[in-house]
């Protein structure tokens, strides 16, 4: 009811990446990768605590992760980690006012200087590096 009164777009509007270009896609991926990495981190802390159960406990847990599903999950985690790191550095620099352009009298058609090529390259680099890291990580896990 509150949403209806305030006419807020809600979560659907917040996560919709289609209308505002690659910057909004990066915003969404940053959130998803952040939440995914936190979930993995909690799982990793729990997983590594199995070492307290001795060699048997460690091997049992390790076997669970050494499956195809486990490798796929780890590959996704690697991708999320690399994207979150590279895009996070881009966002942090932007937050400090680095690379967001300089104020000037705007001319029609008013292309926003803050949405510049440097930041777009940063976003695409984060995606490409994440993909490369995923491929490399998967090959290492598969023993190649």
């Amino acid at each position, binding site marked *: 009811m509150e949403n209806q009164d305030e006419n807020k777009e809600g979560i659907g509007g917040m996560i919709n990446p289609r209308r505002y270009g690659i910057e909004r896609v990066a915003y969404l991926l940053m959130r998803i990768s952040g939440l995914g990495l936190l979930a993995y*981190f909690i799982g990793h802390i729990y997983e590594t*605590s199995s*070492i307290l159960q001795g060699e048997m406990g460690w091997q049992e847990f390790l076997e669970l992760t050494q499956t195809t599903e486990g490798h796929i999950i780890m590959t996704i985690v690697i991708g999320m980690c690399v994207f979150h790191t590279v895009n996070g550095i881009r966002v942090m620099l932007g*937050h400090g006012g680095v690379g967001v352009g300089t104020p000037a009298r705007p001319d029609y058609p008013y292309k926003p200087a803050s949405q510049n090529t440097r930041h777009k390259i940063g976003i695409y680099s984060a995606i490409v590096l994440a993909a490369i890291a995923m491929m490399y990580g998967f090959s290492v896990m598969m*023993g190649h």
Partner: protein
Amino acid sequence: MRESIIMKIHYGTALGAVALVAVHILMRLTQNYAESLEYANVIANYQFIPYAGMLEIILILLSVHGFNGLRVILLELKQGRAYEKAVSYGCVAAMIGLIAYGSRTIFMVNMGMV
């Protein structure tokens, strides 16, 4: 605490974690990946004090960064005094809980209590 201080901590923990997690991952790649996860090797890692110290720092940095990130997302999803307090205190509690749980593993293995 002022939001600017919290966010400075958020950025600081992110930068610190990036550097240390990179070392943590590279340690897995100094030898064969499967070999590096063998019980004896992992125990040796934990009992090497500088490495155990680094794991502890990573644990703290990522817990602070991760749960503050979660707090930010939750604060933006819903508003209200009681809800916001619950989110903030809940995230701090979860952060402390995770650090305590992870530290227990690091300390016990480091001190040879396995």
